[in-house]
């Protein structure tokens, strides 16, 4: 049921929501998360970023995360899109849409997917700073803790 996509091109939230709800009259709630590129990180001005990934693994990893969410919560449909390549401030990076008959299931499943994606999906950000230098973004400890709260 779910749609997983790793792509360079941008996405449109309304279009993805319409695709999920298309012709269905049994969906009570959708929750959508969009992650965006910010122009500041660790007090430095960010001019852009490159998203590298592990092509053979990303699809599998995302599929697994969505499957786990669907086992834990009532998920009628899910869409997960992650962009790769060159991005600029204010660009959309990632989209997670969850459709459910219960709003709390939709919120929890969506939040869980983002927490797991941030620790288990093989994507890496390299930032280009406004001073011309570039650097790989370090994983944040808080993301590890966020994923940890879903463990039993």
């Amino acid at each position, binding site marked *: 049921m779910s749609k997983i996509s790793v792509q360079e091109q941008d996405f449109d939230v309304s279009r993805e929501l319409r695709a999920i709800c298309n012709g269905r009259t049994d969906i009570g709630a959708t929750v959508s998360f969009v992650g965006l590129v910010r122009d500041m990180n660790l007090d430095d001005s960010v001019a852009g970023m490159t*998203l590298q990934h592990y092509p053979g693994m990303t699809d599998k990893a995302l599929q697994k995360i969505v499957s786990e969410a669907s086992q834990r919560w009532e998920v009628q449909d899910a869409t997960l899109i992650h962009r790769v390549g060159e991005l600029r401030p204010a660009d959309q990076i*990632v989209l997670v849409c969850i459709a459910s008959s219960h709003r709390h299931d939709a919120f929890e499943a969506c939040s869980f997917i983002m927490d797991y994606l941030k620790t288990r999906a093989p994507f*890496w950000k390299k930032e280009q700073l406004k001073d011309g230098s570039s650097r*790989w973004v*370090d994983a944040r400890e808080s993301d590890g803790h966020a994923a940890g709260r879903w463990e039993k």
Partner: protein
Amino acid sequence: MATVLYFARLGEQLKTSSEELSLDEMGTVGKLVDHLQDRGEPWSSEFESGRILVAINQEMSDFDSAISDSDEIAFFPPVTGG
């Protein structure tokens, strides 16, 4: 021959993103890492941090996991997508 991949900062530091390697007696990820560290710098330091992750055949694994010559073994830093 196993395929060994290096991603992101790790690939840059090692100046390689992929190699074919005969695992011989290296039956676990840990043994393979010992072998890679024996190459000296920058291999030795890069795998020293204890923060390198490993995937075997595109599944998250750990340093105790068994590996064989038909496997695709990928090393990378903690992920930062999303």
